[in-house]
């Protein structure tokens, strides 16, 4: 929908009117024998011509810039583009070719709905990467092809602290999965294995604690799991067999990832008609603001110079 602010362009008539009308005394030409003619009163006439064209131009531009700023002008300047969802494998993205645009957010469909006006008519849009599937099938006025690819899961925190009298058994578990672990009781870690009766130091922080000896954790008196100020507490024992160790590890892995959105299947969305663009994207507001300031300064300068 065209913004009603554009009606403000009618204001441009004012500077044009001011700059064109000028009352002026009728210029008299010299005539030696004028003395034989009857005298007359000096006449004023409205001269209809352009004066101070540069100033008029600047003032019109200034008004137009204000209106464009209010109407949130969007100029479709982008052509066919490949939109890359952040977190996409760079090498794979490069293989897709085309003019690539890295999206600032993982919500590709949401971003596109806001910025669709920036794309020229007939531009072919391709979204590549791990595109989250929206609840409703999105509708765009452009053809949008989705080439999705599930991104590798993010690695959890790498550091695991093991403080235990049975350190060798724990280390065997983590060695099998390739995790780095140490026994230093400070800093941040992804997982702390605490299997000694002493209370852990305040400097050691982790979202998950595997507690082998619950003496220092009164929260675990009620059950096997508890939430404490330190983080989530589990009562755990070192695995006796390799199978048990794998089960423990996978349980931890599955429970301690953020929820991963479902990836949209590769699909080509046909251009839908009657799609109304969402509210202002503000894509050009920054540029328009700078233009406004520059034009205002120029207008003041020219006005001042004219008075001199």
């Amino acid at each position: 929908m065209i913004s009603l602010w554009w009606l403000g362009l009618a204001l441009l008539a004012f500077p044009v009117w001011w700059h064109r009308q000028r009352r002026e005394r009728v210029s008299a030409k010299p005539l030696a024998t004028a003395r034989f003619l009857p005298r007359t009163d000096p006449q004023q006439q409205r001269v209809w011509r352009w004066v101070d064209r540069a100033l008029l131009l600047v003032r019109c531009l200034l008004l137009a810039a204000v209106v464009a700023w209010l109407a949130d002008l969007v100029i479709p300047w982008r052509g066919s583009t490949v939109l890359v969802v952040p977190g996409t494998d760079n090498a794979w993205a490069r293989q897709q070719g085309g003019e690539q645009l890295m999206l600032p957010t993982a919500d590709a469909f949401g971003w596109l709905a806001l910025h669709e006006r920036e794309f020229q008519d007939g531009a072919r849009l391709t979204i590549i990467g791990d595109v989250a599937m929206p609840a409703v099938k999105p509708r765009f006025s452009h053809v949008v092809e989705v080439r999705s690819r599930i991104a590798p899961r993010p690695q959890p925190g790498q550091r695991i602290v093991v403080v235990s009298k049975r350190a060798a058994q724990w280390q065997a578990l983590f060695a099998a999965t390739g995790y780095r672990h140490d026994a230093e009781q400070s800093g941040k870690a992804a997982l702390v294995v605490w299997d000694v009766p002493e209370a852990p130091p305040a400097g050691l922080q982790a979202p998950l604690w595997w507690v082998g000896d619950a003496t220092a954790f009164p929260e675990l008196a009620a059950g096997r799991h508890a939430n404490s100020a330190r983080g989530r507490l589990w009562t755990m024992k070192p695995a006796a067999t390799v199978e048990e160790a794998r089960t423990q590890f996978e349980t931890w892995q599955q429970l301690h990832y953020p929820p991963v959105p479902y990836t949209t299947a590769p699909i080509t969305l046909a251009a839908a008609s009657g799609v109304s663009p969402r509210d202002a994207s503000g894509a050009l507001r920054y540029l328009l603001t700078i233009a406004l300031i520059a034009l205002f300064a120029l207008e003041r300068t020219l006005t001042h110079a004219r008075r001199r």
Partner: protein
Amino acid sequence: MLVSSALLAHTSDLDLIIRHVLAGLGHGIHAGRERGAGVEFSEYRAYAPGDEWRRVDWKLMARADRYYVREAERDSHVAVWLWLDATASMAEASRSVDGLNKLWYARTMLACIAAIAQRQGDAFGLVVCSGDRVQFTPASRGPRQMHRIMAQLSKAEPMGALPGADTLRASLHFARSPSLIFAASDFLDWPSPQSDALLRLRRMQHDVRALCLQTRAEVDASFPLDTVWRDPEQGEGVFRFGADTLGTYRQGRDEHFARVLAQCRQNNIPAMAACIEDAPAGVLRSWLRLAGRA
């Protein structure tokens, strides 16, 4: 063939214009060159009975074995004064010929007369009334004076009004000996300090000749209608020229110039009105003939 103003107006070279205007004119201002005893050598003439023996050139006689008499130019006692009105109104340009205005025409006329005076051996001087001032170039003879006069004429710019009566009256001492005064002006101000000065000079027994310059448009009243005009010399105030004021204009102008010419006639000043679009040679000849002494 008379060269038209339109053709001459293309050049600002006064010398060239004079040569064109004077080509074939052949007449002087007053009775021609008188030969006789004098200082400046003119030519040899065969001896005729009755010539003074002291004027015979004996060296030439020894070479040619004949008697020759040295003829010298007789210096004229008549001084020619050129009176140029260079006030703002003289800037009035011709509405049909580009680059032609009254001042250009007046300048051309006076330069031609200066050239004739120089040929005749007369002394000539210049009076320029411009910008409320009178500028004199004292009368003298010879080619150098000619250059001086030409430079002054070329320098004259149309500006200001006529000088005041006191200024002019104090300046009239220039013409002591009997002189010829050629005044070129538009004579739109009459009576004026200028007219008073010319009449006074006439009463001092100088031979005053007036050339009243006009444009063809002024004579025919063929200005663009419904245009606002201003007087170049009278400052404020605008004037309107329309179909209804045509009669007023004609009547006012005719009465004015009739008065000017009548007063000139009364005071025995030969005066002539000329349009600047007319060929300068013809106007010059008429002006010189006006006194009946061409």
